[in-house]
């Protein structure tokens, strides 16, 4: 099988709002017009409502209720709003996936993204917003496989569970490619990494488990 077989099923692919694509593409652009982007977010009622509900939750601890996206920008700052829009757009891009607990999937991705952003803030070498976004999308290949080939995805999951084989080995065995590679192909198709330096290095190192093992030899990690 080839990755393109998954990508050809366009009606099954995640439906990422244009404004989210635009935001991700603009992450590294110092001249990005975020005012225009927040205007577009305001016009997307579903997304605005989700974001405002979240912003008004106890987690953000704001002193008063926020009732518009413009107000959210003032109270939280554009950087925080960017994070929320990207997370909201990606998490809302798929509503149901056979054989996958979506809530759990995104909860894990949110946590990874949040931790990545925190570590990025401790170094000058990585933009925290970029770290957050990579954390969010690093596992999107697995979502893609579940969306387009649910039976195969389930069979791979079973194989990993029953035989203790690594996920990448099981994926190679059944698909002849890994879900990280599929994820990279999807991001390439969306042109998400177009403006970033060395996109191959970004995805390969993070997503190629054999490479990761060499980088981090000590931990024997459960499947992420």
């Amino acid at each position: 099988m080839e990755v393109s077989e998954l990508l050809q099923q366009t009606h099954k692919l995640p439906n990422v709002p244009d404004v989210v694509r635009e935001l991700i593409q603009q992450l590294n652009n110092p001249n990005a017009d975020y005012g225009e982007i927040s205007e577009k977010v305001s016009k997307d009622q579903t997304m605005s409502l989700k974001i405002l509900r979240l912003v008004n939750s106890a987690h953000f601890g704001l002193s008063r209720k926020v009732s518009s996206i413009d107000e959210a920008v003032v109270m939280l700052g554009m950087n925080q709003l960017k994070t929320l829009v990207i997370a909201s757009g990606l998490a809302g891009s798929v509503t149901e996936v056979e054989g996958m607990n979506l809530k759990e999937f995104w909860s894990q991705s949110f946590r990874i993204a949040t931790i990545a952003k925190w570590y990025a803030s401790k170094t000058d070498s990585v933009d925290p917003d970029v770290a957050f976004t990579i954390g969010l999308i690093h596992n999107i290949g697995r979502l893609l496989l579940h969306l387009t080939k649910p039976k195969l995805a389930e069979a791979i999951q079973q194989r990993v569970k029953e035989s203790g084989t690594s996920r990448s080995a099981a994926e190679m065995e059944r698909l002849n490619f890994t879900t990280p590679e599929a994820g990279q192909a999807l991001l390439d198709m969306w042109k998400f990494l177009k403006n970033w330096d060395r996109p191959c290095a970004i995805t390969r190192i993070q997503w190629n488990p054999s490479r990761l093992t060499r980088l981090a030899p000590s931990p024997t990690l459960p499947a992420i």
Partner: protein
Amino acid sequence: MESEPPNPACAITNIACYLNACIRSKRSLEETMERFPVKVAALAGLPADIASSCEEAMALESGLDGLAG
């Protein structure tokens, strides 16, 4: 491709995945710190003693779960 220089953003995601996996598998803080991928942290330009801040990183709440589902 294997010889390409590692990207720091990637190394950071790797560390975040490591901590998430430790949380999921209920690995003790002691073991999490002991097995912390210090070489990866160095690639990301993080300070040498960054493993000691595992607890703080693992306690972070995304606050975003309301966006899922």
